[in-house]
């Protein structure tokens, strides 16, 4: 467990009048967070001399070794090894352009998308991935000028079939996942949906109960800075568990079988669970 030391003379929760909500403390750009004291400066902060200041509006996290601010909002800037969900926007000769919800478009080279040898002079690679396909992939390279490459050679990388895509603020993704996956697992188990979350703020959901799952996710996004959120989401999804069980009793075997069949067919030609580097 990390020891949290707050250099600011402030409470870590603030109670507002009669309301029962408790809020994490929020800092603003330009606010002094403390002295650097040799600590690592991560996202959301900058140093002037030995003083560290917040760069964005967000929740400060100061430990013995690190100072950073978790932003309340902001666009997604790709970092190497990020697992993201992207959409194919263009089929090139030796790869695909993938929109990863960033001002920087990424490229998936054929060699990182397909396991078999592909003769790009003869073959039209749109048979593997076409415009509009949704993939769960990994950022493999980010140059200084933000030229991005992604790869399917990563544990869990796959094409995502059917389902819907939802965009949230990338800064809220950690809260939506929850500590050790607690929040997303809660939503998955209560709604029975298949959910993939990309670090880039793109979320893919498939399942009959997806409306409820979407509502839960959007609630977490909106109230991410409040405390007691997990309980609230649990309550919200309480009814859903019963609903799901009810449906399962009516048509139990069909839904599970058809899903397995679908997945078996389509994963034939695409990279199958490439090994992580």
């Amino acid at each position: 467990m990390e020891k949290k030391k707050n250099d600011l003379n402030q409470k870590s929760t603030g109670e507002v009048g009669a309301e029962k909500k408790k809020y994490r403390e929020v800092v603003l750009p330009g606010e002094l967070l403390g002295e650097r004291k040799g600590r690592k400066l991560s996202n959301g902060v900058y140093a002037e001399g030995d003083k560290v200041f917040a760069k964005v509006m967000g929740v400060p996290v100061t430990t013995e070794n690190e100072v950073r601010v978790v932003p309340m909002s902001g666009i997604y800037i790709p970092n190497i090894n990020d697992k993201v969900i992207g959409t194919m926007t263009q089929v090139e000769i030796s790869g695909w352009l993938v929109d990863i919800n960033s001002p920087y478009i990424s490229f998936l080279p054929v060699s990182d998308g397909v396991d078999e040898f592909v003769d790009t002079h003869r073959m039209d690679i749109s048979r593997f991935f076409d415009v509009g396909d949704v993939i769960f992939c990994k950022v493999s390279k980010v140059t200084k000028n933000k030229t991005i490459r992604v790869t399917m050679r990563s544990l869990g990388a796959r094409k995502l079939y059917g389902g819907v895509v939802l965009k949230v603020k990338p800064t809220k993704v950690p809260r939506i996942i929850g500590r050790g996956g607690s929040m997303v697992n809660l939503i998955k188990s209560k709604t029975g949906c298949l959910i993939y979350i990309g670090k880039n703020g793109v979320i893919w959901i498939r399942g009959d109960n997806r409306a409820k799952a979407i509502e839960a996710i959007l609630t977490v996004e909106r109230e991410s800075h409040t405390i007691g959120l997990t309980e609230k989401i649990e309550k919200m999804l309480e009814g859903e568990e019963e609903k799901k069980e009810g449906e399962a009793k009516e048509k139990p075997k069909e839904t599970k079988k058809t899903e397995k069949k679908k997945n078996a067919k389509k994963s034939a030609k695409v990279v199958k669970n490439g090994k992580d580097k």
Partner: protein
Amino acid sequence: MVKTNEKLIVKGKRLDGRAIEDLRPVKMDVDVIERADGSAQVAFGNTETIVSVYGPRKLYPRFLQKSDTGILRCRYNMAPFSVEDRKRPGPGRRSIEISKVTRLALEPATFLTDFPKTVVDVFIEVLRGDGSTRVAGVNAASIALATAGVPMRDLVVACSVGKIDGKLVVDLNGLEDNNSEADIAFAIMPSKEKVTLLQMDGRLTKEELFESLDLAKKTCKKIYEMQKSALKESFKD
């Protein structure tokens, strides 16, 4: 533009009842435009501006892209119905100049080098014009940038200072602005005490000018507290 020969300060008070160092009632709200990445609405008395921020986003046309930094683009515009004599739509010379100085007021505060090849667009609309519109715009733009998550060294705070009836006053309204012996638009990064906008027209001695600058800095500190409240309050609802 109303010119008057009447006195603007009577028995130590301005015509709208204010003391010479009083601001008009200030209203600041953020997240007022859903579709934008960041937004704010700021009013000083009857002057009201609304701002949205989009970005950092991809910059087109491509030749405008800078490979090592993002750029800031700013558009200040007055709605035709914002003033007494309808203002013809479209950018006039005044709006073009104000767009430029506003951009230069905000640029030093932003970490654009974190986002090469992108643009941060700031759109300022004056909905009601009653003096000191450009500084209201800068105040709103600054908190809109913060809500958009654009990294900044500091917020930017702005105010106007002027000379009417021989006295230095702050936050000039329309009538005072048009009949002033001098008026100054000033913006500062408050925690760093670094000035990013300074324009003046009129006639001031060097001493009066220095005194005005100090008064502007002091007034901006008051407005800074209001910006901070508006941002921090936005989480509590």
